[in-house]
C-alpha cells in the first residue's frame, strides 16, 4: 500500500450512502489532526462533492460507482503549506462542462447552487480534471499549524 494512502472507499451513487462516508470522514480527519470545525468543514466538502456527483454526473442513478481516496500530501508538493489532507473523488459520468461549474450568486435568495461554495470555502485546493474517461475532483486541506509554520 502506498505510504501516503490513508483510505480508499468505493460506494454506489446512492444518497443513503452519504452518511456512511461522513462517518468515516469525521473520524479520519479527526485522527489526521484537524480541529472540530475543520473536521466538520472537510466532511461537508466531501459530502457536497458526492452529492454533486450523484445529482449531476450520474443524474440521480443510484447504482453507479464512486471512488473516494484520502492521502497525506507532504510539504514538497506545495509551496503554500505543510502537511495536507488530500481527497480524490472519481466518477465515471460524462465530462463536466466547466462553464456550468458555478454556484448561484450568494446575494440571491433561492434554493440550490450552494454546494460548490461550501466546497471552495472549506478546502485550500479544489481542482476538477478529466482523466482516462473519469471525472476527478481533487481537494486538499492543509493542517493549520503546519500551514503557519510553512508561511
Amino acid at each position, binding site marked *: 500500500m502506498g505510504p501516503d494512502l490513508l483510505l480508499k472507499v468505493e460506494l*454506489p451513487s*446512492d*444518497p*443513503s*450512502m*452519504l*452518511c456512511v462516508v*461522513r462517518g468515516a470522514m469525521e473520524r479520519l480527519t479527526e485522527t489526521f489532526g484537524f480541529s472540530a*470545525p475543520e473536521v*466538520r468543514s472537510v466532511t*461537508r466538502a466531501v*459530502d*457536497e462533492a458526492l*452529492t454533486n456527483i*450523484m*445529482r449531476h454526473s450520474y443524474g440521480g442513478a*443510484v*447504482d453507479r460507482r464512486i471512488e473516494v481516496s484520502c492521502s497525506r500530501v507532504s510539504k514538497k508538493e506545495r509551496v503554500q503549506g505543510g502537511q495536507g489532507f488530500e481527497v480524490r473523488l472519481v466518477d465515471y459520468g460524462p465530462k463536466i462542462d466547466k462553464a456550468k461549474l458555478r454556484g448561484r450568486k*450568494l*446575494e440571491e*435568495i*433561492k*434554493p*440550490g447552487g*450552494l*454546494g460548490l*461554495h*461550501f466546497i471552495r*470555502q472549506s478546502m485550500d485546493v479544489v481542482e476538477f480534471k478529466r482523466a482516462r474517461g473519469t471525472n476527478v475532483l481533487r481537494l486538499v486541506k492543509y493542517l493549520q499549524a503546519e500551514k503557519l509554520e510553512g508561511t
Partner: protein
Amino acid sequence: MLGGKPLQISARLLGTTTVFDITGDIDLAHSPEVRKALLSEIKDKKTPKVVMNMSKVRYIDSSGVASLVEGLKASRDAGTRFMLVGLSPAAREVLQLSRLLKIFETFDTEEAALAG
C-alpha cells in the same frame, strides 16, 4: 436502495402553530422529505406559524438548506411565519456559509419562538 433509518419528522400542533421535530441528517437522501412536509403545511394547509425544531439535526447539507429556503419562500408567499429553533453549531455554520442565517427568524428555544 437501503431501507435504513429514515430522517424522523414529527409534527406537534400547538394552537395554530405547527412544530416540526426533526431528528437525523438533512442531506440529499432526506431533504425531499423535509421539503414535502414543509410545503404541505405552508402551501396547502396555510398554517399561520411553522416552527422547525432543529435541535436534533446532526448534519444539514446544501440540499437541506435549499429545503428550508423553499419553506421560507412559501411562507412569505402565503403571508405566514416560518421559524428555526435550536440550531446546532453545525447547522448555524452552514446557514452562515450560505449567508442565509439572517434571512431566517431564528430562536434559541421553542418558548421564544412560540412567544415571538
